[in-house]
């Protein structure tokens, strides 16, 4: 079993590194590092939320980008209405305050997840994969159709959302906002996975019939889990829109869903910190390989195959030792 000591020995330095990264960026005089790692933290949030479905719930969703997109578009649309001075739906002036836009983005993503999940979870297996994909693609084409918000081209935002007491347009402050968000999500997910609710979700993942003989209907639990995961992805989307000050239909696209899935598998399915490692490995590899070739995906493929075949719990399993624990 992976001991607490082993976990601390591996995870503590990583957290210290993340906390101290701005120092490194300043020392190397490389501000790009900050924006790269902000993206890593944001994708980590999305990947952790996806792993709640994939790894803990046994629900293979290929449409997780849908909720990233909804979160990002919520931020983008609210921002757009403040700049053009024309209220949303004629009533809501929009907002550029992160304390309003982030919760709204999370709520919007949760709402979409509730409706989409309610339908998808009536199916299972291959059907579930296909129908989650179909819903995400529907939203993708809907976003393309939103001419007033840039349609196909997407929509640039002129600034990041404001946050009281924080200069979010400063990459350093924004980086820490992302880091704190990720830590918060990890903490919440940790509590959830080990709670009574989480136990049922984990149980139902391998054995939904058996859960029923225990007097529990797994559908409702899975739906709540789907909504929670969607909300997490919504937060990631909202942060991503702010980080890049840009929204586009690509945020809904199945390729993003696929990339998130790769991050989870690479980092360690059914582990909480694995997806963080997966997101970091994926984006760093992309960064490095893209310097040499535009077909970087072609080289990532074999890496993924090797990791998935030889390390059951991905990079996390390699670092911690593939323990009999599952967190």
């Amino acid at each position, binding site marked *: 079993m992976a001991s607490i000591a082993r976990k601390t020995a591996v995870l503590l330095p990583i957290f210290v590194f993340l906390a101290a990264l701005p120092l490194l960026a300043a020392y190397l005089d490389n501000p790009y590092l900050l924006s790269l790692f902000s993206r890593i933290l944001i994708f980590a949030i999305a990947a952790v939320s996806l792993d709640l479905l994939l790894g803990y719930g046994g629900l293979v969703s290929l449409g997780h980008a849908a909720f990233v997109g909804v979160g990002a578009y919520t931020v983008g649309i609210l921002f757009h209405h403040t700049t053009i001075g024309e209220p949303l739906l004629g009533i809501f002036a929009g907002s550029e305050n992160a304390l309003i836009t982030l919760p709204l983005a999370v709520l919007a993503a949760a709402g979409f997840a509730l409706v989409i999940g309610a339908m998808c979870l009536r199916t299972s297996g291959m059907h579930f994969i296909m129908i989650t994909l179909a819903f995400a693609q529907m939203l993708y084409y809907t976003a393309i159709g939103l001419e007033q918000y840039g349609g196909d081209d997407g929509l640039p935002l002129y600034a990041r959302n404001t946050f009281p007491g924080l200069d979010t347009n400063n990459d350093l402050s924004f980086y820490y906002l992302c880091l704190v968000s990720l830590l918060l999500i990890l903490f919440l997910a940790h509590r959830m996975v080990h709670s009574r609710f*989480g136990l049922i979700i984990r149980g139902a993942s391998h054995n939904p019939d058996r*859960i029923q003989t225990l007097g*529990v*209907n797994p559908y409702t639990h899975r739906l709540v889990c789907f909504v929670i995961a969607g909300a997490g992805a919504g937060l990631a989307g909202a942060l991503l829109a702010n980080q890049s000050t840009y929204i586009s239909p690509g945020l809904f696209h199945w390729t993003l869903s696929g990339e998130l899935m790769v991050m989870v598998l690479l980092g360690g399915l059914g582990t909480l910190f694995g997806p963080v490692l997966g997101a970091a490995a994926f984006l760093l590899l992309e960064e490095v390989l893209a310097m040499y070739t535009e077909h970087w995906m072609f080289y990532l493929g074999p890496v993924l195959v090797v990791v998935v075949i030889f390390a059951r719990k991905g990079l996390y399993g390699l670092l911690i030792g593939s323990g009999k624990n599952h967190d």
Partner: protein
Amino acid sequence: MTDHILEVRNLRKSFGALLASNNLSFSVRRGDVHALIGPNGAGKTTLVNQISGFIRPDSGSILFEKTDIVAMPAHRRAAMGLGRSFQITSIFDHLTVAENLTLAILAHSGHTFRFWRHCLRIPLVQQTLPSTLERVDLDHRANLPARHLSHGEKKQLEVGMALAGNPKLLILDEPMAGMGPGGTVEMSKLIRKLKTTMTILLVEHDMAAVFALADRITVLVYGTAIANGTPDEIRTDPEVRSAYLGEEG
């Protein structure tokens, strides 16, 4: 008037041309260990699946505590006090023994939407888990993932999980299958212990164990109950002897 906890009436279920339950009727008295025996393929598991709600009969009725449960989903039946174990063990392999039992304890207590407290630190679990572990002799295995248990231990865990809900009727589908003689003795002891607090419907192949444990026996052949009675009546029933016991030697 006998108090029947379970009454199965005129049950029919076909798989294509095969009649797995053929106008099947029998009743289980409260407090009994009621054994269900019959050759392989007689339709015992199919019957258990219909009682617990995994297979819908084509026709007929199943009364549990005088309520017709035929149209009820499995989880509602379980909540009413119908517990079962499976012939093919279906514990949660990737969870630890303690987590398996905790899941069963919590599932039966309602309020499953709790997101915050660690499941093993919930008061109900701390009260119930140690005694449940001990009842099925798995206290020394609590933190082992269930996939690492021996076959007999998996069966014990399976029974422990069915017990966690304090069922009124416990259905055990071949709990001794694949066990050595030691395991069979252990399981018989466990069933005797449980008998004091609940009714048990025991599907079992091991004849010695059945005749030693059961208060009443129903014999199933080709989906029909051909005999019903005490172990002595069954032992001497000529139809049973020719249809079933004879071929067992």
